[in-house]
C-alpha cells in the first residue's frame, strides 16, 4: 500500500470518478434542466490540513466565501471500504441553485433557510447517489449510504470533525452551470485502507491486474 499514486493508478481513478461524476452531472442537469459542463478530474492524495488549504486557496467563483457542503458516508457491505462523498458549492451558488429550482429568484434573504437546506440536501443526495451507483458498479460491491448532511462552513472549518492525519483522496471535478456562474466540486474522503481497496477494485475493473 503506498500513499503515492502511480501514473496508471491516477489515470484509472480519474477515469472511474469521471464516469461516476458524468452520471451525477446528468442527474443534476435533469434537476436544473440545464446542461452541465464537467471539468477534467484531478486526483490527489492529501492530508486533511492540506485539503483545507487547497480549498481555501482555490480562487474560483463562490469558493472564497462560505461553502455549502452536502456530505454522505458510504461503506461497502464488507465494511472494508469507507468513504465520505462531499459535494461543495459556494454559499451564493448553492443559494442560486436551490432558489432557481424552487422558482424564487427574487428572494431577498441573504442566507439559506432551513427548508432550502432541506431541498439542497435532496439535490446533493440525488447527485451523490447517482455517482455512487456508477462507483458501485466499478467496485463490484453495493455501497451502503447514509442520509445527506447539509452544512455550511468556511473551508478551514469544513473538516473539523475529521482526524487531522486522515488521508483524503481528493477527486476534484468541477461542475458548471452554463447560464450561471456556479461551480461545484465533488470530493471523496477516505482512509488509507479504503484507498487501497479502491485502487485494487479500480485496477481490477480496468483489467490492470
Amino acid at each position, binding site marked *: 500500500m503506498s500513499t503515492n499514486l502511480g501514473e496508471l493508478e491516477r489515470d484509472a481513478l480519474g477515469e472511474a470518478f469521471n464516469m461516476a461524476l458524468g452520471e451525477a452531472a446528468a442527474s443534476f442537469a435533469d434537476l436544473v434542466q440545464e446542461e452541465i459542463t464537467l471539468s477534467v478530474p484531478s486526483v490527489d492524495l492529501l492530508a486533511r490540513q492540506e485539503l483545507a488549504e487547497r480549498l481555501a486557496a482555490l480562487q474560483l467563483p463562490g469558493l472564497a466565501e462560505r461553502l455549502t457542503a452536502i456530505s454522505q458516508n458510504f461503506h461497502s457491505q464488507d465494511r472494508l471500504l469507507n468513504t465520505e462523498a462531499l459535494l461543495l458549492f459556494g454559499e451564493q451558488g448553492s443559494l442560486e441553485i436551490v432558489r432557481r429550482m424552487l422558482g424564487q429568484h427574487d428572494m431577498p434573504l441573504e442566507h439559506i433557510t432551513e427548508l432550502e437546506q432541506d431541498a439542497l440536501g435532496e439535490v446533493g443526495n440525488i447527485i451523490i447517489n447517482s455517482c*455512487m451507483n456508477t462507483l458501485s458498479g466499478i467496485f463490484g460491491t453495493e455501497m451502503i449510504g447514509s442520509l445527506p448532511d447539509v452544512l455550511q462552513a468556511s473551508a478551514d472549518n469544513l473538516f473539523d470533525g475529521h482526524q487531522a492525519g486522515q488521508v483524503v483522496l481528493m477527486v476534484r471535478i468541477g461542475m458548471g452551470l452554463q447560464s450561471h456562474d456556479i461551480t461545484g466540486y465533488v470530493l471523496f474522503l477516505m482512509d488509507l485502507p479504503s484507498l487501497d481497496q479502491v485502487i485494487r477494485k479500480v485496477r481490477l475493473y480496468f483489467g490492470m491486474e
Partner: protein
Amino acid sequence: MSELFDRVDMGLLWLDESGLIGLCNRWLSEAARWPAPPLGQTLEQAFGPELSPKLVQAVDEALRRGRSVRLSHAFHPTPLPLAPRRGDAQQRLQQQIDVQPAEHGGRMGCLIQVRDLTELTRREALLKEQARRLAHDLGELRIAQDELTRQSTRLRELTRIAPVALFETDLQGMLLYTNERFLSLWQLRIGGILGRHWSALLPAAAAAAMVEPWKELLAAQDRPYRDVRVAQEGETERWLRMEASLLRNLDGEAFGTLSSLVDVSELYRRSQQFEHRAHHDALTGLPNRDRLLQRLEGALAAARHLGRSLPLVFLDLDGFKPINDHHGHATGDALLQALAQRLRRQLRADDLLARVGGDEFALLLSDADGAAQVARIMAKLEDVLREPFELNGLRLHVGCSWGLAQYPADGGDADALLAAADARMYLHKQQRRRRDASTENHAP
C-alpha cells in the same frame, strides 16, 4: 424497542426486505388515522392512492441498493396522506421524508423517518414574505432618499445661483439659513450670524425700513411683494424688493419664514429715467408739452376748487431762426440750452417752464395773482434774455415776445388758455415788429 419508538416526535416506519411494514410508531399511526399499526401490509395497502410514487422508488433504492434517499419538503410537500394528529383529518402535514437501509431484529430492511414541517413551512413563508416586503420598502426608501438627495442638491444649487438674497428664520425671526447673496448684499460673513435676528445684521437705516414691511408680508395671505427704499448714508438711493412667506408643516402649522430680497435700484433708476424722458424735452431738460398739460390740468382743478385765478404765459423767441440758419443747428441747440438755464434760474421751484415747440415756451406761474405780478416776472425774464449769450466765441442776441392768459377770464380749460396766451403773444410780437420797424425808419 417499539415502546421507545412511540415516544419519538416524528413518524417512524420500518419495512422488511419484501417491503412489508414491520414496525410503525404511534406518531405515524395517529397522523395516518390508523386505529392500529398496519403491520404486514405494503405501503400501497396502508396509505392507498395518495402515496407518492417517489417514496416507493426511494424504498426500492434503499432495499435493493442500500441507498439512503431524502425527499425534501420543497420538491415533495406531502408524499404521505398524513393529517395533524389533533385536528382536521382533511388537512395534510407538510413533510420531510428520509429513507435509509436499516437492520431490525437481525433482518435487513429500511427505515422511513417522517418529519412534520408544517410549522416550519408556515414560519418560512412568513419570513420570506416579510423579507420581500422589507426589500420592497427598502427599495421605496432608497428611491425616496435618492429623490431627497436630488431635491436638496437642486435646492442648494438654486439658492447658490438664484439672483436673490434668501434667508430663513424661525417664527421669531432668528436666522437659520442664508445664501451667499444675502451675505454679500449686506457684506456679512457667515460666522456668528445664525441664531441672531436677521434685522440685527443690517445697517440700522435698512433694518428700520424693512422690519415692518416684512411683518406685513408674513401676515398677508396673498404673498405680494414690497419694494423698500433702503437709505444708506453717502450712497446712492437703493431699492430692495422683499418677498416673505411662512413655512408650514404638513399639518399647516407655521414653523418658520423664508424671505427673499432683490436689489431693484436699477429698475427704479430706469423707470425714473423713462418717466423723465416722457415728460421732458431732451435738449433743454425742461418739461415738455405733455408735462405742461398735465400740470396745467392739475393747477386748473385746484384754481377752480379754490376760486382763484391762474396765469399762463406763452413765450416765443425773437431772432432765434436767423441764428439757427446762420450758425447751424448745433449753435442753435446750445443757445436753447443756455437760455433755458438762464430762465430757469429766475423762476421759483414751483413755477413750471416748459418747452412746447422749437423756440416756444410756456410758463405756468404758481401763486401769481394779477397781471402786474406777472408783468414783473416777465420783465425780469426779458432782462436776463437781453444779456448776450457767449457761445463758441460768438456773441448772440435774442429777444422774446410773450402773451398772458388768465383763468378763468381768458378761458376755462387748458386748450383755451394756451390758445389765448398764444394769440396774445402773437399780437405782442407784431406790435414789437411794428415798433422796431418804425424805430429803424427813424434811425439816422
